[in-house]
């Protein structure tokens, strides 16, 4: 493997002195992988993403993207390298899908520039990838939850970043739409993107991810391939619940069955 897409060195972050969220986190995300971030509520999964995008500034430690420290990058530069899809939220601003996706081109536009040909092509491609061509003139409030999620994903794709980070992209979706979205992410990974997603469903994570990062109380408890991370011992230690791990009958990946 070449250079990792993301490497995090001794990252610490706290909202206040008494409330450390992440403590001395070091990890690497392999370029071109689909990596899942797992862990119980409050383990620091979302915070880790917000640190990667520099929405929060780390107290100590460093984050390298493509071998460069994010400290020295401007907001624009960073947003051309890593595109983030936040947790599901309703927007009060009711613009069309195309207008939303076009905002993904902001990192490439100056104040006076009009939409360039490259912008238009990127928007068109992102709409196509998101399966949104028929919906492009609809406004966000008229979309279903799954459609809205794909619209937000398409906006991130228009950023043309090599890393796509998503915070619980499948929450609030039914299983059909969860599968659709993860399949779409897998397709994007196959096209060369590095996909990093905070996920809650261990079995879906095992089905789609190659690598996993398991967080516990603000620290990395385990990282590696799905087979290495998703073990009964790790689940017992991190989630404090008993489980047995078996092989998926069709796909052969580990699956978790909880025990009473």
């Amino acid at each position, binding site marked *: 493997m070449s250079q990792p897409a993301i490497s995090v060195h001794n990252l610490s972050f706290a909202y206040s002195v008494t409330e450390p969220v992440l403590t001395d986190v070091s990890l690497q995300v392999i370029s071109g992988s689909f990596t899942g971030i797992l862990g119980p509520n409050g383990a620091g999964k979302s915070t880790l993403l*917000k640190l990667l*995008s*520099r*929405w929060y500034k780390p107290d100590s430690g460093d984050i390298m993207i493509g071998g460069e420290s994010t400290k020295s990058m*401007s*907001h*624009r*530069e*960073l*947003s*051309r390298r890593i*595109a*983030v899809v*936040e947790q599901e*939220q309703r*927007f*009060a*601003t*009711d*613009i*069309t899908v195309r*207008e*939303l996706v076009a*905002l*993904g081109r*902001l*990192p490439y*536009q100056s*104040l*006076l520039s009009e939409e360039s040909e490259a912008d238009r092509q990127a928007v068109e491609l992102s709409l196509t990838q998101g399966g949104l061509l028929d919906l492009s*003139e609809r*406004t966000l409030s008229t979309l279903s939850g799954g459609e809205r999620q794909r619209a937000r994903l398409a906006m*991130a794709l228009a*950023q043309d970043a090599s890393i796509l980070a998503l915070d619980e992209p499948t929450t609030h979706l039914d299983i059909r739409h969860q599968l659709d979205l993860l399949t779409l992410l897998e397709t994007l990974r196959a096209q060369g993107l590095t996909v990093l997603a905070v996920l809650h469903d261990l079995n879906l994570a095992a089905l789609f991810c190659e690598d996993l990062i398991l967080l516990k109380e603000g620290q990395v408890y385990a990282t590696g391939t799905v087979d290495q991370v998703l073990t009964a011992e790790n689940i017992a230690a991190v989630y404090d619940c008993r489980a047995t791990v078996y092989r998926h009958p069709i796909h052969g990946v580990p699956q978790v069955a909880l025990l009473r």
Partner: protein
Amino acid sequence: MEIKKPLRVMPLLWTLLLAMLIISMANGAVSIPVSRIWAALSEVISSPRAEWSSEATILWRLRIPRALLAAVVGAGLATAGAVLQGLLRNGLADSYVLGVSSGASLGAALAMLMGLRLSFFGLGSVTPAAFVGATLTLFVVVFIARRMTGNSTLGLLLAGIAMSSFLSAIVSLLVFFSRERIQPIVFWTMGGFGARSWNHLIAVAPYIFVGYSVAFLLNRQLTAISLGDETAHHLGVNVPSTRLVLLGASALLTAAAVSVSGVIGFVGLMIPHMARMVSSHNYRRLLPASAVLGATFLVAADLIARVIVKPAELPVGIITALCGGPFFIYLLSKRRREI
């Protein structure tokens, strides 16, 4: 290429504004038939001032500058409201509701009282003083709402109402103690476009132009921020500095409007909502639509204020408040859940 429907709204809005300007020029204490406006205008261009008919004089000296001033102020107030609503992600935000207009009027009143005739760019000191008042008020209100009330809609409104009452009380005090000395201030605090001339228009238009241009240049950033600060950040927008510039632009627009025509409420509250209905939530289209609709609305409100009790005049703020008050309550009822 397909034609995007909302883009075609603008010619319609411009036509509406033009029609309203002509109606406004034709009506008043003396009616001038629309058919004679053109003749009177060509008289203004072709003959020396001493030979003008009374119609030409009324049009050129009174009606035209007054209508244009109402249009410019309306555009400015509506733009300021649209910007504030997007920045604060709050459809109830507006320079009047947030007390920014009162802050501007305090600044302007102080400048008038102290007779600060120091010239800034040859435009007098009233607008700059109003800008200082507006900016300080805006930052205090936003700070109180964000830091002390957890940025709730209710907190923002209450902070605005408190500041607004407090500052208007100070303005009233100033006016009370200076009544004999300075008549124009009393006149000005009532709000309106009576006895305004080309000089007022020339003094205020550049500020409105600058404020609007800043907002429009940042239209994409503004749309992004209206979706959420974090979303905007992920799109590479420097949220704190962009917000600062846009708050400054809305303070400038408010200050310019207030320094020339006093406090006129609710334009910035109502017009952006109407603009969203006929045009779009996307600021690239919302800003021009708001500006032109705001101009049309205030020209119409001023016309009503002039003709409804002619030959006397109502302060135009009464007309805008009569429309705006019920509209504000309607918006409140729509957002009940959130508050």
